[in-house]
């Protein structure tokens, strides 16, 4: 085995290791069990924090109802939906925190998923 082949092999192994760590561990990215609402939840940058916030939402509907509502209201990207909420005054209080409605619904969904 020449030196070039050795280096190529090591690189391949390293790449495979990194890919494995990325895919199968939480070292680089937090992984969550698959849910029926991942298309929505993937818009949350930090699902754990969102779930913590969502757990404080009073009288939240169940996950299925939340997801249905979000699929209707959240047509584009989250940032656009949030700005639309703010402009329209669609804010919801969570333990006093004034938050865009879409953020609250997504957080409640994260807590229930």
């Amino acid at each position, binding site marked *: 085995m020449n030196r070039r082949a050795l280096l190529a092999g090591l690189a391949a192994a390293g790449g495979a290791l990194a890919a494995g760590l990325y895919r199968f561990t939480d070292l680089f990215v937090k992984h969550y069990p698959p849910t029926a609402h991942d298309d929505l939840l993937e818009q*949350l*940058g*930090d699902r754990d*924090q*969102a779930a*913590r*916030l969502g757990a*404080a939402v009073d009288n939240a509907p169940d996950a299925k109802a939340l997801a249905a509502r979000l699929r209707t209201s959240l047509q584009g990207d*989250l*940032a656009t939906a*949030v*700005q639309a909420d*703010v*402009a329209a*005054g669609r*804010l919801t*209080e*969570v*333990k*006093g*925190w*004034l*938050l*865009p409605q*879409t*953020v609250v619904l*997504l*957080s409640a969904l994260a807590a229930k998923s």
Partner: protein
Amino acid sequence: MSAFVDARTLAAGTVLTPDIAIVGGGPAGISLALALAATKLDILLLESGSMNLDPAVQDMYAGSQSGDDYASLDAGRLRTLGGGTNHWGGWCRPLDASDFEKRDWVPHSGWPFPRTALDPYYPRAQALVEAGPWIYDQGDRLASAKAPMLALGNGGLYTSWFQFSKMRGDVLPTRFGVRYEADIKAAANIKPLLNANVTAIRLTPDARSVDRLDVATLTGLRFTVKPRHVVLAAGGMENARLLLASNDVMKAGVGNQNDLVGRFFGDNPIPRDVATLVVFSGKRGPYYGNNLNMGNGAIMRAVFAPTAAFARSRHVMGSLTTMEHPVELDETGKAAVITAAIALGVDASNARAFSVGCGMELMPDPDRRLTLTGEKDALGLPRLKLHMRVTDDDFARYRLTLAELGRQLLASGAGLLRLNCSRREEWLKNMDWGHHHLGTVRMHSDPKQGVVDGDGKVHGLANLHVAGSAVFPTYGASNPTLNLLALTLRLADHLKRIAA
């Protein structure tokens, strides 16, 4: 040159006959006297106290109360030369033009004149409180040069500015007794009388004018003042007390033919920690949390105020919201900040949170009132009782303003707000008061709606005027001193015209 005269040294039965008797040597009384200096009018300035606070004199302020908790009646007042300026904080801000307007969602609102009527007097009032140049409208520009301002998105609140009174060469606010003692002494036509307590306003039998004032000292000496004109400048509580207690001719009290004297008592509630404001960047200009020297001799501080358009559309009252000390967030708060910031696409890794306070304007309320009790003070004057009331509606309206502030912070991506108070007990938990005694001798062109007219003259009486914040028909959220001084200087011009 007139030295201060101790009334206790007068001969019993003395009758003094000045052109104008000013009752009260607080900021209004002193400013009025000085504004009338160098005229041909003989001015008698009657001050109950002296240069130093005497507990026996101060005790005449004591009273009782019912209703919502409020500071004791002798706590927010000082019965000594300079009055309340001996312990004020020096906060100055002109009332807004909208404060003078009839607001259809505010019963009993509307001053007899617009803000423009006071505009010519504000510069002199500003000089009296020594708050530096008039640059309330330049705060944004001056602040931006020091540190970036907190971005508020378009909406119902804007950044407004206080300026602060300061004694020359010192950081203390101007104490009118100390500061203007020499000016009073230097005025040949002002006779300042200390330890002189007015105990009754005696009317002519036809109840059309003041005939004389009964005056007494705590040493038992009694004498009489027979002025051509009287100006009550004894403060928002004591003016009402003197009018109500002087009931020998007008049985309900002087000027109280329509049962208005003592009603509509107002103050600015200062509930603390009403909200938590998170700044995503963590950077806050020093002028938000502190009184900052902006140069030009002006000390300023930023606050958030509702626009007139927002007040009209949402039916809120005046308020001035302040950022206070840093606070720590709980886990839910941290989660709210992180989640909201990610959704907004902003970095909140250095976010900091601050407690929020405010000064509120109350809705005028005729049942928030001062009445006389059967208990008497050392000179036989009935003591006051205050029935205090702050309604849930007062808090609810201010909460709308806070919510708009929160919305604007999100809109600009600058931060996030938590509303800390929902229930009444939460608002009252950290409640402080401005000790701004307002409205008890309210001003209105219609005698059925006001005790004094737009010139401060008591309706129906030819020669009795009232100065000070007692005449404010609505209160505004701005601290009253600067504004009552402007009003007093306007009254001085009126008196020059009618008394000359």
